[in-house]
């Protein structure tokens, strides 16, 4: 295999939208969605004569991110990045260039690997165009609609060092980074809504001591899965080019979700000259010791600390589960449930398997109610299936598990009723019962199924099996 001779070198640029109440330069609401062009004003439309005024909260959020990523927070400046694009109202983007607010940090992955952070700077988001052309790309479009609701939304761009060595590591980095960012409260980190966007710089080289190869930048990666696929495709493509005696051209490539491949957008030779220069409409930012310290002191606990805490209190538990628990921001609920004496194993299973699909509702679960639910499953009052059904209802409309179980008819059948039903079924299926007695496991499920059918699901599976066992003798 030739691929083994090559080492991938990956650096990631992650854009995250800050969840400030208003946009970066104006008082328009910073909200996802909304009817197109309803969160706009002369300033974020870049109308002639308007000027930007920096949102102080955006600076504070950027500082939180810098602090969480172990960066040095420095006096910084804004620059203009000049290029023409219809979704950019001013035809330049206000960004930070050679004097970003956060520099030289790092992120430790749960696997123990440390990835360098070169910078994390503030910039403004653009609008969103939808092209009416065939290819979906602007150059071939015959018409376009632009929604400027997103224009001027504050972003922090986090640029990693080229320290990442595989697609898996890239995924770990983005997952951990996302968890850290969300924990700071600066962003909601929703990749699916585009509030977290990743570009990957990928190159390959012959072994860890060889100089870096020419890199390509992969854009349009909209999920962790796409990130892994895009990087893997790109590594393979580059190795093939090199093995065929070709050379890699530095270029920007677009990841196509349908073909799972990357296509060249533009090469360095035709690359844009952004003509950066200091933004004359904005003074430099110098946050000062006091503000920096305040941000440090107020920084909420970050995922590594939170994971350690779960491990310490829970005692057991799989690392992967704990990572996910914290990533989903469910660790607080989990620890609360433990403190109410509920069973950790069951609780973590229900949280990760069932509750995680309705994450917003899960985070709002009442600790006592959830602990009570887990208690009911543990004691056998509810079967696993019933527990899931009650949980689903709790997530949907809230309420105490006892009441929900009652309303669903899960109160538990009186044992004499259950015994009657089971006896009846045994009598109706004598051959099957003989096989059960002989130890045929498959028949057990048949009996459970029959009982459930007869009781319309009210019976507890565990109790059914217990009864069957007693009938053996």
């Amino acid at each position: 295999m030739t691929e083994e001779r090559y080492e991938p070198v990956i650096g990631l640029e992650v854009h995250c939208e800050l969840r400030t109440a208003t946009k970066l330069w104006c008082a328009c609401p910073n909200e996802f969605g909304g009817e197109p062009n309803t969160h706009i004003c002369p300033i974020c439309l870049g109308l002639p004569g308007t000027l930007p005024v920096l949102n102080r909260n955006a600076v504070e959020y950027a500082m939180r991110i810098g602090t969480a990523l172990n960066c040095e927070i420095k006096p910084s400046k804004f620059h203009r990045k000049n290029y023409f694009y219809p979704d950019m109202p001013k035809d330049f983007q206000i960004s930070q260039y050679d004097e970003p607010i956060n520099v030289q940090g790092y992120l430790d992955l749960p696997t123990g690997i440390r990835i360098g952070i070169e910078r994390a700077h503030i910039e403004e988001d653009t609008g969103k165009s939808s092209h009416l052309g065939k290819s979906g790309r602007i150059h071939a479009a015959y018409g376009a609609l632009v929604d400027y609701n997103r224009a001027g939304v504050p972003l922090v761009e986090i640029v990693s060092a080229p320290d990442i060595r595989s697609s898996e590591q890239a995924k770990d980095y983005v997952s951990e980074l996302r968890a850290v960012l969300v924990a700071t409260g600066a962003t909601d980190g929703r990749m699916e809504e585009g509030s977290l966007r990743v570009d990957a710089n990928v190159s390959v080289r012959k072994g860890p001591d060889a100089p870096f190869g020419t890199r390509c930048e992969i854009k349009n990666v909209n999920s962790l899965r796409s990130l892994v696929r895009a990087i893997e495709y790109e590594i393979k493509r580059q190795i093939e080019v090199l093995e065929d005696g070709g050379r890699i051209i530095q270029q920007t490539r677009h990841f196509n979700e349908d073909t799972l491949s990357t296509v060249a957008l533009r090469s360095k030779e035709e690359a844009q000259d952004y003509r950066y220069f200091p933004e004359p409409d904005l003074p430099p930012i110098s946050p000062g010791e006091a503000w920096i310290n305040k941000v440090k002191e107020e920084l909420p606990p970050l995922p590594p600390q939170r994971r350690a805490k779960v491990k310490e209190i829970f005692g057991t538990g799989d690392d992967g589960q704990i990572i996910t628990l914290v990533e989903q921001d469910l660790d607080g609920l989990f620890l609360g449930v433990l403190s109410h004496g509920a069973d950790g194993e069951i609780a973590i299973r229900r949280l990760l398997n069932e509750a995680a699909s309705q994450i917003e509702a899960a985070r709002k679960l009442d600790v006592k109610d959830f602990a009570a639910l887990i208690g009911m499953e543990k004691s056998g009052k509810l079967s696993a299936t019933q527990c899931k059904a009650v949980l689903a209802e709790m997530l949907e409309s809230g309420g105490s598990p006892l009441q929900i179980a009652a309303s669903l008819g899960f109160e538990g059948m009186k044992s004499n009723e259950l015994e009657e039903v089971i006896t009846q079924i045994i009598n109706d299926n004598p051959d099957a019962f003989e096989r059960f007695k002989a130890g045929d496991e498959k028949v057990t499920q048949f009996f459970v199924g029959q009982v459930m059918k007869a009781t319309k699901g009210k019976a507890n599976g565990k109790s059914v099996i217990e009864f069957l066992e007693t009938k053996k003798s």
Partner: protein
Amino acid sequence: MKLSEQLLSAKEIAVGIKNKTFSATEIVSDTLGRIEKLDGDIHAFLNVTGDQALLRAKEIDEMVSKGEDPGILAGVPIGIKDNICTRKVATTCGSKILNEWKPPYDATVIEKLRSQGAIVVGKTNMDEFAMGSSTEHSAFGPTKNPHNIKCVPGGSSGGSAAAVASGMVPLALGSDTGGSIRQPAAFCGVVGLKPTYGLVSRYGLVAFASSLDQIGPFSRDVDDSVLLANAIMGHDPLDSTSLDIDTPPIKINSDGGVRGLRIGLVSEFLEGISPEISEAIERACKYLDAGGGQVESCSVPSVKQSLSAYYLIAPAEASSNLARFDGVRFGMRVDGKNAEEMMVNTRTAGFGDEVKRRIMLGTYALSAGYYDAYYGSAQKLRTLVIRDFESVYQKFDVLLSPTTPTTAFEIGAKIDDPLTMYLSDVCTIPTNLAGHPAISVPFGYDSKGLPIGLQVLAPALKDDLTLKVASYLESARENAND
């Protein structure tokens, strides 16, 4: 053209209206009548908003009759340079590309004027996007100098200067990026002040070069400039470069004249000036001396390189500021096969030659590989100019110079020679680079009957000093009549 002698000053109008000597409606009607009569020849206005002005005048009159105070500019008609945004009133910047664009908002200065009772009567002509020194670069035809309609009024705020000089309005607003208020003020024989950078909000001023642009007043006498400056100064939270300081109203106490003031005569600004302007400077020095001022020659060496620094910084910022005129959201659109082609077509058709020249210059100055040599060096020069001024202001309170090397030139004389045109701003540009205040005040005429303007410069926030010295120089006119 014979200029009317019986024109009321802004101060007189405001007092007269408050005292009910006359009504705002009468004043506005008179003003509209004068514009109607004179502007056919002069073309100072691009748009006269007569109906709105009369409505506003009625409101002012009602306020007065109810005993309310409409403000320090009660009922005073004012012309607004057409790069200052006025809600629902076309703002063209003298360009076709805006295609009669009507801003959905008022510039901060417009709001301030309104709150002081001023009445906007129209939008004045200008070089396209304020790029020019003659108003010949307006897409809507040149403005003529009221003193000689064969001559240019200067620029870029030529329409505002001419409107005031011809007596159509007592006041006008202009913008000054490299002399665009002071140079036309000098050519037209009116007072023009460029305030300290950051003293007047730029919110709603369509940007040419953001780090240099400043809005300022035109008037026929210094007192009226003080009045207008006081109406428009002050911190604006919508402009991050607006100075967050207290700005008590400027009051000039002319009793003491210029007694005890140290006045530097900048030798670099005297090089290559016309003999008649040189004579005017000499007369001014004598007059200042007679008033107790201490006039001495001085040097600000770096101002000689200011022109080259300016012609890199201003176009660089302009190339970026003017990018938004792309046909996507407002103004003119010329279609194309795709978005990029539409933008190219729109900008090709919409911008005039001078604007294109500066956009190209600025784009080049910011390009990778040229940035350090051009934009970078220009910024260093700018720092040097600031330092030179700092050191000269250790010894002097104010500086004196001609506003322009020559009086108004003829229309067409320099239009094909951009470099010579650029030289008419040589005395005014350094002030913008430093962010300092400077004023142009009329000081006699040349043999052709064209006004001569003198410039008084001062350190940042000493706007009142420039006005005080200008007021003294202005008094030479009355003394000469005695």
